[in-house]
C-alpha cells in the first residue's frame, strides 16, 4: 500500500516535471569546467533572461565530451559545445558536428580572422585564443629563445609541459623551430628534451601546480598558456613573460553545434550572444577568456593579463589541427619511449 502510494507520488512528480520542461525551451551546452561562476553571471543568466529559456550546463574534459556526443549520436543531448580546435576537427571527422550557418551570427564579422573558421571546414568558430610562451625569473636568467630552456644551467630549473597537455606539443614545436626543425613529427625536440629529462624538474600536467613550485623556487622557468599567467603576476617575484625570437605559440578554443540537435536556432542565438562585443568584453575584464571579437576594448591592466590585440592574434604560430590529430598518438608513443622512462 505504502509502496503503491510512493510510486504514485513519484509518477505524478515526474509528470509535472515533464510538463514544466515542455513549456520551457532548453538549451544544453557542454563546456570546460573552469570559471563557471563567472560564466553563469556574465553569460548564462543574461542569455536565459533574453531568450526566456533554460540553459543546462554540462562540464567535463574533451575526452568525456566527445565520448558522450558519440554515445548519443542518434539522439543528441548536447546542443552546442566548446572544445579545442583539434578536438573539433576530431568531432567533425566522427561526423558529430554540423556546418555552422554563419549568416545567423551577427557578430561573425567582428571576429579576428584566425577565429573565423580555424579548421577550414566551416564547422567551428573560435571564441577565445591564448598565447603560449615562457614565464621566467628575470633575476636568475634570461630567456631569448625557446632553445634557452635546455641550456645546462637553465634546464635543472624548468618545468616543461607534458606532451599530453594542450601546451606540450606547441612548446615542443617551438623548441624544434629553435633547433632549426620545422617537422610536425617533433622527433628532434622530443630527442632534445629526452636528453635533458633527468635535469628538468618535472613534466607538468596542470599549470595550476606551477605557481607553488615557482613560489618555493623549485622551478625558475616554465612554458605556460597566457590564461595561467595572472596568478604568477601576483606572486611578488621578478617574473616576466618571454618574447622568444622564434615567436609565441598558443591555442584556440572553438564553438561547435551538434549534428541532429533539435535546438539549432537557440544554439546559434546563444553562440551569437557569446561572441557579442558586450559579453566578450565582460569575459575579458573578468580575465576569464581572451576575446576573439576585435571590437573589444579593455584597460591596459586587463590587456596585460590576457592574450589581447590584433598584432598578437596575427603573430601566434598555431599548430594546425590536422597535424595535432594525425600525430598525437605518435608523439605520445615517442615521448613515453624516450622521455617517460
Amino acid at each position, binding site marked *: 500500500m505504502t509502496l503503491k502510494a510512493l510510486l504514485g507520488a513519484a509518477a505524478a512528480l515526474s509528470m509535472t516535471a515533464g510538463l514544466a520542461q515542455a513549456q520551457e525551451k532548453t538549451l544544453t551546452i557542454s563546456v570546460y569546467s573552469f570559471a563557471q561562476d563567472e560564466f553563469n553571471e556574465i553569460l548564462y543568466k543574461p542569455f536565459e533572461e533574453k531568450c526566456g529559456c533554460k540553459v543546462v550546463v554540462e562540464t567535463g*574534459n574533451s*575526452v568525456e565530451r566527445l565520448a558522450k556526443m558519440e554515445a548519443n549520436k542518434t539522439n543528441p543531448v548536447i546542443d552546442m559545445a566548446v572544445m579545442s580546435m583539434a578536438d573539433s576537427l576530431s568531432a567533425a571527422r566522427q561526423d558529430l558536428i554540423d556546418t555552422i550557418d554563419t549568416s545567423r551570427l551577427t557578430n561573425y564579422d567582428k571576429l579576428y580572422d584566425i577565429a573565423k573558421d580555424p579548421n577550414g571546414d566551416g564547422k567551428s568558430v573560435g571564441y577565445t585564443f591564448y598565447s603560449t610562451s615562457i614565464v621566467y625569473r628575470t633575476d636568475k636568467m634570461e630567456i631569448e629563445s625557446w632553445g634557452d630552456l635546455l641550456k645546462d644551467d637553465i634546464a635543472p630549473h624548468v618545468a616543461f609541459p*607534458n606532451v*599530453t597537455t594542450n601546451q606540450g606539443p606547441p612548446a615542443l614545436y617551438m623548441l624544434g623551430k629553435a633547433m632549426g626543425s620545422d617537422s610536425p613529427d617533433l622527433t628532434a625536440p622530443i630527442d632534445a628534451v629526452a636528453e635533458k*629529462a633527468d635535469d628538468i*624538474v*618535472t*613534466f*607538468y*600536467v596542470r599549470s595550476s*601546480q606551477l605557481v*607553488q*613550485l615557482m613560489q*618555493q*623556487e*623549485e622551478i625558475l622557468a616554465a612554458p605556460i598558456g597566457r590564461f595561467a599567467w595572472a596568478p604568477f603576476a601576483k606572486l611578488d617575484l621578478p617574473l616576466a613573460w618571454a618574447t622568444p625570437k622564434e615567436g609565441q605559440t598558443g591555442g584556440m578554443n572553438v564553438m561547435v553545434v551538434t549534428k541532429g540537435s533539435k535546438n539549432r536556432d537557440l544554439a546559434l542565438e546563444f553562440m551569437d550572444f557569446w561572441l557579442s562585443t558586450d559579453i566578450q568584453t565582460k569575459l575579458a575584464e573578468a580575465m576569464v577568456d581572451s576575446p576573439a571579437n576585435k571590437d573589444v576594448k579593455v584597460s591596459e591592466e586587463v590587456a596585460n593579463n590576457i592574450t589581447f590585440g590584433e598584432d598578437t592574434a596575427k603573430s601566434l604560430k598555431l599548430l594546425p589541427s590536422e597535424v595535432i590529430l594525425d600525430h598525437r*598518438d605518435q608523439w*605520445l608513443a615517442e615521448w*613515453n*619511449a624516450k622521455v*617517460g*622512462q
Partner: protein
Amino acid sequence: MFQNRTEALALALPAALFAAIVFLVPVAILLSEGFRTADGWSIQAYIDFFSMPLNQKVFLRTLRLGLTVTFVAAIIGYAAAYAIVTLPPSSKGKMIGLVVLPLMISPVARTYAWIVILGRTGIVNQALMTVGLTDGPVRFLFTETAVFIGLLQLFLPLMIISLISALENLPRDAVPAARVLGANWFQVFWKVLLPLTREGLVIGGTLVFTGSLTAYITPAILGGSKVLMLETLLYQQVTVANNFVSASIIALILILMSFAANILLRRIASARNSK
C-alpha cells in the same frame, strides 16, 4: 536464526543481485575489453602491453614501491603498535587518535604539504644543509623517493591500527612467559609476537600494499610524469590516449596484484603457523 537455508539465501538475494548488476557485470565487461579483438578472443593485447619497455618499467616500479612501502610500514608499524599497546589506557586512546588523525585529512592537502616539506627550500633540505650533509639542496620532489615517502605516510596508519588490534588480542602473559623461559627479545618477537599477530600483519600488509598500488593522487603530485606508476599510466591511457584496451589491462593487473598479495601473505602466515 533462520528456519532454513532457502530463507536466508532469499534475504541475501537482493543485495547480491544489486552487487552483481552494478558492480560485477560492469567490471567483467571492462576487463573483457583487454581480451577482445576484431576476430575473437586473444591475449595478444597483453603480449603487446608487456613488450613495451615503458610498461615493463612502470609495472616493476609499481611492484617495487608497493613492496618496499609495505615492508617499511610493517617494521615501523610493529614498533609503534607495540609501544602504543603497552601504554596506560588514557594515553593509548590519545595515541591511537593521533595515528588516525592523518586519515581524516584529504590526501590532496597531505600530499601538497609534502611538496612544501620536500622542496628545495623545504624543512628537509634546510636540515640537511644545516647539518652539513649536503652543500646545495637535494632534489626530492618528482622522484621515487618522494612517492615512497608520500605513500608510507599515507598508509602507515592502516598498518599501525591493524597491528594494534592484533596485539591487543595477545594473551597478556605471553611475552613475560617467554622471557621467563629464557627467550631473548628477538626470539620473543619471532616465536611469540609474530605468529600470534600474523592476522593483523596480513590485514595491514594487504591494505598497505593494495593502497600503494592503487593510490593516484600521491604518485601524480609527488612523482608526476617522471615517476609513472600503473595508476597514473592508466589515467593517461584513458584521458589522453583514449586507449581503453591498455587501461583494461592495467586494471586487471592491479586487481591480480592485490589478490596475489593477499593470498601470498596468508600463505606465509599459515606456513609459519603450522611449524
